[in-house]
C-alpha cells in the first residue's frame, strides 16, 4: 500500500517498502509559551527557523498545528501553510482537531496534503471524510471512539476495521488512509508501548495499511527522552510503522530511524546512510580547513 502526498513540486511515497517518513512535529504551539504569544499577535516569524531546523534535521514532511486558544485557528493555519510553502517544498501534514481549520488549511495548501486527524467517532468521520474526498487528500485516523482510548489491541483493531469501511463508503481508497495506532507514555502504563507495537504489527499483517503516530508521546514524564524515542522508533518500524510525527531536529533520533531503514532493508546497500555520512564528513573537513585557514 502506497500513500502518496505532494507539495506543489514534490511527491513523497509512504509505504512498507519505502524509507521511513519522518514528519517533523515542531511547528506546534502546544507547550511553547513564547510561540503562542507571537502567534496570538499575528507574528509567524518563528516558523522560519522551525522549518529550516527540521529540513536540516532530515524531515520528509512537516506537521503544522496552529492550536492556540483564543485565536482564529482557521485563519492562522491557512496563513502558516502559505508561509511554509514559500520556505520549503516538503509536503505538509495539516494538523487540527477543528474542522473549520482543516478546511481552511486544505484550501490554502498547494498539493496533496495529509490531514491529521479524524477519530473513529461516527459523527466526526461524517464531517471530515467528505472534506478529504473533496480535496483528494489523505487522512490520518485514530482508532478511538466515543467511549475513550481503547486499552486493548483487539478494541483498536475493531475500530480500525470500522474506520476502513467508513472511509471506503465515502469513496476514499485505503491507500489514502493512514492509521494512528495510538502511542501513549510508558511512564503512566508499563504496557502502553507493548500494546502500541502489537497493534502496529496486527494492522500491518491484516491490512497492510500505512501508519503514523506521535512518537514523542511514549516518553512523556520520563527523563532522557531522546534515548527512549530513539529506541522506540526502530522497534515500531520493525513492527510495521511507516511514518511518525516526531522530533526531526535531534540527530540521535533521526539517526536511529535512518539506521532502522538500513537494517530493515529499506535503504538498500546503505545508499542513504553512506551519503549522509559522506556529507557530514565533507562538512567536517570544510569546517577544519576553515579553522586552519584563520
Amino acid at each position: 500500500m502506497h500513500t502518496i502526498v505532494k507539495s506543489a513540486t514534490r511527491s513523497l511515497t509512504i509505504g512498507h517498502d519505502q524509507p521511513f517518513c519522518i514528519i517533523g512535529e515542531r511547528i506546534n504551539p502546544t507547550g511553547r509559551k513564547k510561540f503562542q504569544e507571537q502567534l496570538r499577535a499575528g507574528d509567524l516569524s518563528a516558523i522560519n527557523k522551525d522549518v529550516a531546523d527540521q529540513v536540516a534535521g532530515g524531515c520528509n514532511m512537516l506537521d503544522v498545528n496552529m492550536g492556540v486558544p483564543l485565536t482564529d485557528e482557521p485563519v492562522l493555519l491557512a496563513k502558516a501553510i502559505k508561509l511554509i510553502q514559500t520556505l520549503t517544498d516538503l509536503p505538509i501534514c495539516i494538523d487540527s482537531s477543528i474542522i473549520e481549520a482543516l478546511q481552511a488549511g486544505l484550501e490554502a495548501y498547494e498539493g496533496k496534503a495529509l490531514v491529521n486527524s479524524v477519530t473513529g467517532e461516527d459523527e466526526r468521520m461524517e464531517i471530515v471524510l467528505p472534506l478529504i474526498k473533496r480535496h483528494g487528500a489523505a487522512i490520518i485516523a485514530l482508532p478511538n471512539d466515543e467511549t475513550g482510548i481503547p486499552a486493548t489491541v483487539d478494541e483498536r483493531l475493531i475500530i480500525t476495521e470500522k474506520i476502513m469501511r467508513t472511509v471506503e463508503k465515502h469513496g476514499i481508497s485505503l491507500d489514502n488512509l493512514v492509521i494512528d495506532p495510538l502511542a501513549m507514555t510508558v511512564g503512566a502504563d508499563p504496557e502502553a508501548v507493548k500494546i502500541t507495537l502489537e497493534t502496529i504489527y496486527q494492522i500491518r499483517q491484516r491490512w497492510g495499511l500505512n501508519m503514523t503516530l506521535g512518537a514523542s508521546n511514549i516518553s512523556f514524564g520520563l527523563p532522557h527522552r531522546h534515548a527512549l524515542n530513539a529506541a522506540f522508533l526502530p522497534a515500531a518500524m520493525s513492527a510495521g510503522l511507516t511514518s511518525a510525527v516526531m522530533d526531526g531536529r535531534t540527530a540521535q533520533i533521526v539517526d536511529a530511524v535512518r539506521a532502522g531503514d538500513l537494517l530493515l532493508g529499506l535503504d538498500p546497500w546503505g545508499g542513504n546512510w553512506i551519503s549522509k555520512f559522506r556529507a557530514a564528513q565533507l562538512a567536517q573537513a570544510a569546517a577544519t580547513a576553515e579553522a586552519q585557514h584563520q
Partner: protein
Amino acid sequence: MTHDEILKALFDETLVGNAPEVLRLTQLGIEEGMTPSSILFDALIPSLEEVGARFERGDFFVPEMLISGKAMSGALNFLRPLLALTGAQTVGTFLMGTVKGDVHDIGKNLVNIMLEGAGFEVIDIGVQVAPEKFVAAIQEHKPDIVGMSAFLTTTMPMFKVNIHEITKAGLRDQVIIMVGGAPVTQEYADVVGADGFAADASTAVRVAKDLIQKRRALVTF
C-alpha cells in the same frame, strides 16, 4: 517499632512507592494503637507532599509519582472506614472529570493522586463527561471543588459550556471551579470564568487548598 518509627517508615516507603509495605505498616500502626488521622496527616500526606515538591523541581518523574500515589491509595482504602468512624474531616471534596469530546486522562489521574495525597476526597467521574453529568454529580456529591480537564484546543470550550450549565442549574455559588490540561492557560481559565487554574498536578493541590481556605474564610466572617 515505636509510633515514630512507624511514621518514619511509612513516609519513606510511600515516597518510593512500596505499596505492600505501606499497607503493612498502616495495618501495623492501627494494631499498635495509632490513630488513623495520625497515620494520614503525619506520614502519608507529608510523604505525598514531598513527592509533589520533587516532581515540581524535576527530581521526580511521572512513574514515581504514580507508584507513590498507588501506595498511598492502598493505605487510604484501609483507613477510610476507620477515618469515617472517628469523624475525621477531609480537606475537601473534589469532583473531577475530563470534558465531553475528550478522552485524555493521564493528567487528570495525576492530579487526582496528588489531591488524594493531600487529603482530599476525590470523586472521579471519568472522561467524556457531558455538562448534564457534571451538574448531576454536583447535586449528588456536593463537592467543594469541581475540576475539569481538557487536552485539546477543540474540547477546551466545553469549560465554558459546563460552567454555563452549572450556573443555569443554580449551583455556581456552591462550588469552586478549577480547570486544567495541556493547552489551558491562566488567561483562558479567566476568560471561561473558572475560579482556579494550575499548570501541573502539585500546583493544582496548592491552588485547590488556597481556594477552599479563601472560601471558608468568607463563609466564617
